[in-house]
């Protein structure tokens, strides 16, 4: 089995079969990760560069770990401490790295479409680790993996994505993926943080009352308020955000059902999520992190020159 694409730029470009293939491969890798010897030789002699033009802790570590578990050689690049800080262009940087015989590129970048630009100009396989406010495909995949693990299937599953939809590449990748897999989607949050045309673009439900969203859903994927990506004030204060849109334990207690709480991290505790929710029984946040490694192993493996 092969993917229909040679890069992982976004969930937008994947077929349902591609998604199923990545998720089933991830399940195999997850089984591997439970063993005493967690390393497999699948990507021996493959060199992968992790290009991070934006700060990252868990995604970068998750990719790096996935690469090492697959026995790949890894190179790390952080824009703030590199030639990018000296004004080198993205294309120059990547071409220089590829000259050193690197096979695959994992890239995070603050500009939407940056990996798509790179894919047009370089021969190596590219995995998007987050581009601007566009997509974060491996997060979408690991969220799906975690939802399936908890709920059995995505078909007909009611997923509410809550919070800063506007600046969230996680939301976009989740929406593309869940739509392809037959889930029902609602986005909820303050109107200033919900793209005006999201209903027309993705056929999702839009709700401004978070309690109603919680009542509707089986899974609530709560997003981080992306203060770093907001160039202008879109709500009045973090305090008010928490009052109006934060998920509190008392809200979950009022529901007549058990729902699953997810969050891509890092959490702004006391803003979008109160600590007793983040750490409470509904939360599968740490499972998401665990699954991230397996999902990234699957993506790397399926896109590597060894599989193609």
């Amino acid at each position: 089995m092969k993917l229909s694409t040679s890069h992982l730029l976004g969930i937008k470009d994947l077929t349902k079969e591609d998604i199923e293939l990545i998720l089933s491969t991830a399940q195999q890798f997850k089984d591997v990760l439970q063993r005493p010897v967690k390393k497999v030789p699948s990507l021996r002699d493959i060199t992968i560069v992790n290009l991070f033009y934006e700060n990252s802790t868990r995604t970068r570590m998750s990719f790096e770990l996935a690469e090492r578990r697959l026995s790949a050689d890894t190179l790390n690049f952080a824009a703030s401490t590199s030639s990018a800080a000296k004004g080198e262009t993205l294309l120059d940087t990547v071409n220089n790295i590829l000259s050193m015989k690197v096979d695959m590129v994992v890239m995070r970048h603050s500009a939407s479409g940056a990996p798509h630009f790179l894919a047009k100009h370089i021969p190596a396989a590219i995995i998007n680790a987050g581009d601007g406010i566009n997509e974060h495909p491996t997060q979408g995949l690991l969220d799906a993996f975690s939802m399936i693990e908890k709920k059995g299937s995505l078909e007909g599953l009611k997923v509410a994505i809550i919070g800063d939809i506007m600046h969230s590449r996680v939301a976009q990748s989740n929406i593309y993926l869940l739509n392809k897999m037959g889930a029902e989607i609602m986005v909820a949050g303050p109107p200033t943080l919900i793209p005006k045309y999201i209903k027309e673009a993705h056929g999702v439900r839009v709700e401004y009352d978070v309690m109603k969203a919680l009542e509707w859903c089986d899974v609530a994927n709560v997003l981080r308020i992306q203060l770093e990506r907001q160039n202008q004030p879109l709500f009045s204060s973090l305090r008010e955000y928490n009052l109006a849109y934060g998920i509190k334990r008392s809200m979950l207690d009022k529901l007549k059902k058990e729902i699953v709480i997810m969050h891509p991290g890092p959490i702004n505790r006391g803003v979008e999520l109160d600590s007793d929710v983040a750490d409470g029984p509904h939360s599968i946040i740490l499972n998401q992190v665990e699954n991230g490694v397996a999902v990234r192993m699957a993506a790397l493996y399926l896109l590597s020159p060894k599989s193609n």
Partner: protein
Amino acid sequence: MKILLKQVIIADPRSPHNGTVKDILIADGIITKIAGEIDGAEEVLHCGGTSFASPGWVDVFANFNDPGFEYKETLETGAAAAAAGGYTNVLVLPNTNPVVHNKTQVEYIVQKSKGLAVNIHPLGAVTKACEGKELAEMYDMYSSGACAFSDGNYPVQSAGLMVKALQYVKAFNGVVIQVPVDKTIGQFGLMHEGIMSTKLGLPGVPALAEELMVARDIKLARYADSKLHFTGVTTPKSFEYIRRAKEAGLQVTCSVTPHHLFFCDEDLLEYDCNLKVNPPLRSKEDMMALREAVLNGTVDCIATHHMPHEWDSKICEFEYAKNGMTGLETSYAALNTVLPNLSAEQVSTLFSLNARKIFNLPAAEIKEGETADITLFNNDGDTQLTNETTKSRSVNSAFMNKMLKGKVIGIFTKANKFINP
């Protein structure tokens, strides 16, 4: 020197020969004779009864970047691109370095353009350094040869300042050109806000940002009773406002670009930086409405918004790419490809006559005794611009390598000629 245009269809609604096939004799830059059959010239250009002679075309909004950004374009390369595109007159933006905001800068362009193939008319800045804070010396610039006034790519945001500018230029019958964008709306936008921007994860510029500015500036023009020209208009609502202003007798006119008529936001699927322009490419419906506005006469002129950029400004991440594409050389063919039923008269009107009226340029009538200022074109030839054939210094055009219908044969102006290969 005598040049004879053999068997050319005259496309000038003001001429008694309009629509007829004639021979035109040009001697030392003057149209000396128009008749059914003329002989005895040193040089003959056979047009076979299928090519049109229009009054020389005028581009009302092009950036030649000279001085300051000569690595993008110079007055020389810009003029060469204009000639290849059939333009005999070009109004160039003040967004140079230094900005064209005083007499010295206007004179630089006027003097330096004298020997060039086409007539270059500087647009003077409305405000000092195009910063939108203080009025520039528009009277002095007008006296030195500035043809109209605009802050170019940095439209005047303050209503108070804009109304003063509109009032101020009345003293010398001036026109203010505005790209209608309210920059407080969709300030960080990179493309049209809509379904496509949502799908592509790019911040959007809503149509509202333009429509608010059009509505506002029309009110200001009414108050000032002055001349206002909008360029790069893109939305149906804007055209509705402009149409109503015209019906009310206001001196409001507008122009659109060939790229807004040819492309829409759906073409941005691959994040093609050459399609990053300002105002942004709008939706497909907007694009179709734009074509309709050209056909029904709401649009007065075609403006290329020729914005050359060096390689590195476009071969980069979409967010970091500069706005704009080159357009002079593909303008007519792009328009003719999407609107093949435009009559030659409509082409002359859109490319020349209206702009000449609005900006007080010489009439360029195709008539015996007049100075020859003529563009020759046909609608059945082909145009295919490539990186090798472009005369512009830059290659940032989404029209590159596209096969377009319609061809500019050449121009006659300034007692000279330029014929395309």
